[in-house]
């Protein structure tokens, strides 16, 4: 089975290649269908891997040696274990659903072929990233997805702000890439290898704390930039300028989770440095609270979901930080389902209200679009972690509960719980504003089966997938953690009445949130809602501060370097000086010649006299 692994990333890449070469000769519809079949085929292969090696996957497929200079051995090799299997299933399956959904969603728009090219390339890149066997191949996938997110966010390039949003996304994530590159250099300089298993063995054998600390921090920066965690989160809200399907795939299910995957994959490196995990936990918890607080004050339907993504990712980082990477992965899986669903739903809502994103001008959509309403509601339940029936109750609340019992986790628990309350608020506020309340009719829009099937599947998933891992003390199946245990270890589980207290606290937090949300929706309709709080609406003004500091300084430095060093320094002083110097020299020499013959003759005789004197001195 392992020699077919290359098909999983290979097929979408093949689709992209076919699109690039033959794209112009086929109609966008055919290209769309071809593009959709590719992830479908790789999902089949992934399904085959589940079937044959579901129990404990450990497959390896060496395709070709990419670079081999001395110790710097990096080959294009794919490795599938539990974590990777989960990630590739999400990437391939959700990728396929998005391809299916966008057949109808984007039909008749400009640049359709380009859209499918980058979408295929993205799925391929994501699969490479997750299946890579060494840091270099991971870096390749890492940057490819960065590129695709740039291109897809700037899909409607004809408006300047969309192009700018794309560039902002790529530049900010590229800060993370630089940090990752530096971390790879440090690890290579210390341990002379790029492949995971020898690297982890070497790290375990001789943990050099300083190097690992710096490498750990750099890897964290990379993850923070990619997963849009605080403070490098500013690109995610702006990248809502791209089509909703793009947001569904890239900014919900796959790319942003790459940062979490990186932390899970390089967990041994973080574990080797004392206190590093807690830093990750803190960053996750704080981001969760921060993003949730911003989410409640947004009016653009997609920005609400964007901030919610940032906050949910915060929970995943919290999961990894408190020593429970398997829980983080579990929440990642759940989040992928319901967030993709919400974004696709939002996309349809935007079409219905013909490109108007402002939720205050929406309302009462439940009568017009019953199917959309129920699926969206399932997503909202999952987002808000409604007890028992929603999937993220089992994943997010488990993380919050585990945070409580981890040493030094009390602070994280408080932040996380507050975040949970805010999450429930913005989730149901969104739902009440868009679907409940007085009806504001939009255009009638008939969703084809291509759109209904994905929404349906994801709705079922966002309800049912949580049952993989019932919280401790509950009767239901607990197969997720044991399945991941051999690779990520079992997370600590709260016991006894502490366990009960934590579960109750989680549920109560959500219910409080829902109540507040109901009131918030009413205030919003009356015009004095939460969105008037400028501090939260502008995400604590971070975006503005960030944009006022870094780009101007960067461009000013470029101008100074250009004017000061290049024009004056090199051109004027160095070359100008040289030119004037030569000019002066020639002028001095020229003054000697004034056409008088005897002047030349006397010059010669003077030379002769001097020579004779020298000869005379010599002969003495």
């Amino acid at each position, binding site marked *: 089975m392992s020699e077919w692994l290359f098909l999983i990333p290979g097929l979408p890449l093949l689709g992209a290649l076919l699109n690039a070469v033959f794209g112009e000769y086929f109609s966008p519809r055919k290209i769309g269908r071809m593009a959709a079949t590719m992830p479908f085929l790789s999902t089949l292969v992934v399904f085959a891997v589940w079937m044959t090696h579901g129990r404990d996957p450990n497959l390896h497929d060496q395709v070709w040696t990419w670079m081999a200079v001395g110790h710097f051995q990096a080959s294009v090799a794919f490795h599938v274990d539990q974590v990777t299997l989960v990630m590739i299933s999400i990437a391939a399956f959700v990728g396929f659903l998005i391809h299916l959904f966008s057949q109808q969603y984007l039909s008749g728009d400009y640049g359709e072929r380009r859209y499918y090219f980058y979408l295929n390339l993205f799925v391929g890149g994501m699969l490479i990233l997750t299946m890579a066997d060494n840091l270099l191949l991971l870096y390749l996938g890492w940057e490819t997805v960065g590129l695709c997110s740039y291109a897809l966010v700037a899909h409607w390039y004809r408006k300047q702000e969309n192009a700018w949003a794309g560039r902002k996304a790529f530049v900010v994530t590229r800060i993370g890439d630089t940090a990752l590159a530096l971390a790879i250099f440090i690890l290579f300089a210390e341990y002379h290898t790029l492949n995971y298993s020898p690297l982890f063995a070497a790290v375990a054998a001789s943990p050099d704390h300083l190097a690992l600390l710096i490498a750990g921090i750099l890897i964290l920066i990379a993850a923070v930039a990619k997963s849009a965690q605080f403070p490098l989160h500013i690109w995610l809200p702006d990248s809502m300028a791209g089509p909703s399907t793009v947001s569904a795939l890239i900014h919900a299910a796959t790319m942003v989770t790459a940062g979490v995957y990186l932390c899970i994959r390089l967990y041994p490196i973080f574990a080797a440095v004392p206190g590093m995990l807690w830093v990750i936990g803190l960053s996750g918890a704080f981001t969760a609270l921060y993003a949730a607080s911003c989410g409640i004050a947004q009016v653009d339907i997609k920005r609400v979901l964007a901030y919610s993504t940032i906050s949910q990712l915060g929970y995943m980082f919290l999961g990894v930080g408190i020593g429970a990477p398997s829980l983080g992965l579990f929440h990642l899986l759940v989040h992928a389902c319901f967030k993709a669903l919400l974004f696709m739903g939002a996309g349809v809502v935007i079409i219905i209200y013909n490109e108007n994103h402002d939720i205050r001008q929406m309302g009462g959509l439940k009568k017009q679009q019953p199917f959309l309403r129920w699926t969206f509601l399932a997503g909202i339940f999952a987002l808000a972690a409604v007890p028992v029936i929603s999937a993220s109750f089992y994943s997010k609340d488990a993380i919050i509960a585990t945070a409580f019992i981890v040493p030094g986790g009390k602070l994280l628990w408080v932040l996380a719980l507050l975040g949970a309350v805010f999450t429930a608020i913005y989730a149901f506020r969104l739902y009440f504003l868009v679907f409940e309340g007085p009806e504001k009719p939009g255009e009638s829009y008939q969703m084809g089966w291509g759109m209904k099937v994905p929404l349906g599947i994801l709705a079922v998933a966002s309800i049912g997938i949580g049952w993989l891992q019932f919280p401790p003390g509950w009767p239901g199946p607990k197969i997720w953690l044991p399945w991941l245990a051999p690779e990520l270890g079992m997370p600590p589980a709260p016991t006894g009445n502490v366990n009960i207290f934590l579960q109750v606290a989680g549920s109560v937090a959500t219910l409080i949130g829902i109540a507040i949300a109901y009131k918030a929706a009413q205030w919003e309709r009356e015009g004095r809602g939460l969105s008037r709080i400028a501090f939260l609406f502008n995400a604590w003004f971070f975006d503005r501060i960030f944009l006022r500091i870094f780009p101007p300084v960067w461009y000013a430095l470029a101008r100074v370097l250009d004017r000061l060093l290049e024009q004056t320094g090199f051109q004027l002083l160095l070359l100008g000086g040289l030119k004037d110097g030569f000019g002066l020299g020639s*002028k001095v020499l*020229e*003054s000697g*010649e*004034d*056409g*008088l*013959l*005897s002047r030349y003759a006397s010059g010669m*005789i003077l030379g002769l006299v001097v020579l004779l004197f020298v000869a005379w001195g010599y002969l003495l």
Partner: protein
Amino acid sequence: MTLELALVIAALLFVVGVALILLRRNLIFLLLGIELLFNAAMVIALAGGARWHSGTGQVLVVFMMALSGAALALTLALLLRVKHELGGDTVDDLRQLREEVDE
């Protein structure tokens, strides 16, 4: 007649020739000076030939005479054209070769 005496004679002739070239204004005197220089060279050539008892000294003198005659003829011809074309035959007037120092 010692070698030293011959050198003194040559030096004397040489000095007179140089004085003529440097001091006189009229080009003819310059040419006369040049002829004197030639003669000074001939004296030394002869002294050398006599000193080493070989005829080459005198052969050299013959050739020098021929050369000086040839050179002189050409110079005088040029001098005539210069007088005709450029109008002046003194050293101070003929300064056309000056380097026009353009700014």
